[in-house]
């Protein structure tokens, strides 16, 4: 059923995989033309990575693991070709893990056989960092002149644990609003910018189109939109206290559930779609709150569909949206950490990320590349704008089983089995049972 699709689409895996069918050829040529001139180091002085000091002494073999479909592997291959040209002393072996990435990487670590450099998604980053699986990279960064402010702050936060940094973000996506401009026109409304306006707009859209205007599922990683906008979070910043019992979370739950009970939002299952993006593609709703993976999906499944993109409406505590990201990190047991760092640095630098950008599967994590990216994909400006205020979707060590429990609580709420008060109490219990506090 749909929830399997919903989950895989809504999780961060889709940042890489969501756009499996985005045509490769046209984009390849686009990349050729857009970047042939820019490839020389002097072309973009603002974002150019300085010459690596560590690279002078690094050599030998490095293994790297990632998870990509055909296009994801093609991107990695292009990046590694660029790396090989720049650092001929270092040989990289790439190992692709097509599915069940977390399971595979754990067993590889358990066997003492993990790759030197591998993908770490923000949803399990804290589990890995708190268990010393990853190598802190602060010293390497200082040596090579890489600073955290070269990346969007929420993405760096995702890989910061107790003052040390354990990975550099390779790409990311926030949640934004994708809507049907024709429906907005027929309802005579503009894109709403506050919670109150959102409710009014959804009602107007419903009156105009006769269908529920927003597809929103009872998933915790969608509820967090409203939680962050209300100023709430699962834990405090240092992960020493669970803060799900706060009045901000109550407010967010009431609003989130209110949209549903008042018929302003519907779950994708209610309206017969696999996931909210699918509902939008099929024309079953006029708006969805989804990530950058909507673009490849639309391109692939409904290339002629008219759509517009906007930042999410702001909540009582201002703008807010979850950021999904993944980083390259170095295995703490790596035998060749110097070379592993040089590779990590390259893949997350302007040079490495440029190879990935034209595919449009995810957003660059470097503000320096904003201009170049928007030249290629001008309609995605509202997504990049969220780099200023997004919150990395992380719930602390144990966050993954917490998310499973929290999803069940929200499903129970939407099924009418419990009320908002009980749901909040159960969310707190779920957090206490799963999240390991510092």
């Amino acid at each position, binding site marked *: *059923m*749909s*929830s*399997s699709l919903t*989950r895989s689409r809504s999780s961060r895996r889709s940042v890489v995989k969501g756009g499996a069918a985005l045509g490769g050829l046209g984009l390849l040529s686009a990349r050729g033309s857009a970047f042939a001139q820019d490839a020389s180091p002097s072309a973009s002085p603002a974002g150019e990575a300085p010459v690596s000091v560590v690279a002078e002494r690094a050599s030998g073999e490095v293994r790297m693991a990632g998870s990509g479909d055909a296009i994801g592997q093609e991107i990695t291959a292009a990046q590694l070709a660029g790396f090989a040209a720049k650092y001929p002393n270092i040989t990289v072996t790439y190992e692709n893990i097509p599915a069940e990435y*977390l*399971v595979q990487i*754990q*067993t590889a*670590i*358990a066997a003492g056989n993990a790759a030197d450099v591998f993908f770490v998604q923000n949803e399990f980053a804290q*589990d*890995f960092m708190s*268990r*010393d*699986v990853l190598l802190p990279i602060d010293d390497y960064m200082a040596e090579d002149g890489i600073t955290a402010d070269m990346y969007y702050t929420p993405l760096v936060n995702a890989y910061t644990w107790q003052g040390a940094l354990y990975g550099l973000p390779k790409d990311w996506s926030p949640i934004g609003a994708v809507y049907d401009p024709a429906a907005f026109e027929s309802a005579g409304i503009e894109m709403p910018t506050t919670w109150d306006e959102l409710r009014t707009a959804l009602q107007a859209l419903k009156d105009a189109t006769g269908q529920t205007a927003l597809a929103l599922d009872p998933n915790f990683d969608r509820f967090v939109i409203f939680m962050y906008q209300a100023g709430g979070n699962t834990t405090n910043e240092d992960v020493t206290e669970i803060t799900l019992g706060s009045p901000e979370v109550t407010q967010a739950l009431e609003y989130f559930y209110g949209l549903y009970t008042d018929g302003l939002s519907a*779950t994708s*299952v*209610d*309206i*017969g779609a696999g996931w909210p993006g699918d509902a939008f593609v099929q024309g079953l709703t006029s708006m969805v709150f989804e990530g950058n993976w909507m673009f490849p999906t639309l391109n692939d499944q409904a290339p002629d569909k008219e759509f517009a993109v906007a930042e999410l409406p702001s909540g009582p505590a201002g703008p807010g949206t979850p950021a999904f990201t993944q980083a390259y990190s170095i295995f703490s047991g790596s035998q060749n950490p110097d070379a592993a760092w040089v590779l990590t640095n390259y893949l997350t630098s302007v040079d490495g990320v440029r190879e990935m950008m034209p595919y449009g599967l995810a957003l660059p994590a470097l503000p320096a590349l904003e201009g170049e990216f928007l030249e290629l994909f001008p309609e995605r400006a509202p997504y990049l704008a969220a780099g200023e205020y997004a919150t990395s979707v992380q719930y602390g*060590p*144990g966050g*993954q*089983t917490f998310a*499973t*429990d929290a*999803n*069940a609580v929200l*499903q*129970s709420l939407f*099924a009418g*089995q419990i009320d908002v008060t009980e749901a909040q109490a159960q969310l707190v219990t779920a957090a206490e049972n*799963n999240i390991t506090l510092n």
Partner: protein
Amino acid sequence: MAVFPTRKRRGPIEAEDALAGWVFIAPALIVLTVFVFWPIAQVFWVSFHEWSLIEPGRPFRGLANYRDLFSDPDFEIALRNTIWFALGVVPVQTFLGVLLAVLANRAIPGKAFFRTAFYFPSISSSVVISVIFIWMYQQNGLINFGLRAIGFGTPQPPWLSNPKGVIEMLLNAVGIDNVTPWLAGPSVALASIMMMNIWTTMGSMMVIFLAGLQGISGDLYEAASIDGANKRQQFFQITIPMLRPVIFFVTTLGFIGTFQVFDQIFVMTPGGSPVKTTLTLGYLVYEEGFRGFAMGMACAIAVVLFLIILSIYLIQRRFIKESGLD
């Protein structure tokens, strides 16, 4: 002392025989030890530790994992769902297996076709079948289409998203509210997976029963019909009793299979959604071990699961022994 010389005389030969014996079974023994006995022992070992795959420190916890397990609400939910799953699936698949076997054992036209058709789901990939059933169970899927076509309402929310217990729904219909979770029965979502599981497994059961049926000597039926027994009496007095050992075998297989159910849940309702009503013990092992980084806990669940299946087997065996059919 008188015995001693004889033993001494036989000793070397016995030892030689024993050595030869060990040499002959060594290949199998080594393979089994490495791939079966050792991993099983390891599961028990890990279940006594706090063990995450990615941490070198693995402190001994004694029985603490088991203690935590029995106070874990998820374990109770998973146990409940798994028991409902087994109780729903095993009798039905056994009954349908007998029925299909009896039908397919008759001299009907196209017998080979029916046998193949019934067996087909069992030899197909369960993941492929699960994906097909995901489509069929959707809001606008085949099953709802069929229900609408013959004038029935369709469940809302659709099958795999409906957390309402089926027994609870019946009880609510006759005016009984506030049903306890244990009495609520499997959710509509779990029942949907159960129906699919029955559909996929009844073919294998049919094949086993077919073999059983063909092992029953025709003389018995002949003698019975001379004594004046009709078809029905023959079925209940001869066929069913003669099939008893096969029924034991099939239900044992059924319980083992249903208690271990994982792949269909993993594909169709990840996370045990909706509201954990499809969370089974097998799925909880995965969730705890790989997503919760608690392999010790996962192994403790696996050990409990093993003990449950073992006791069901022993109870069944005793039952069969007492009825004189071993």
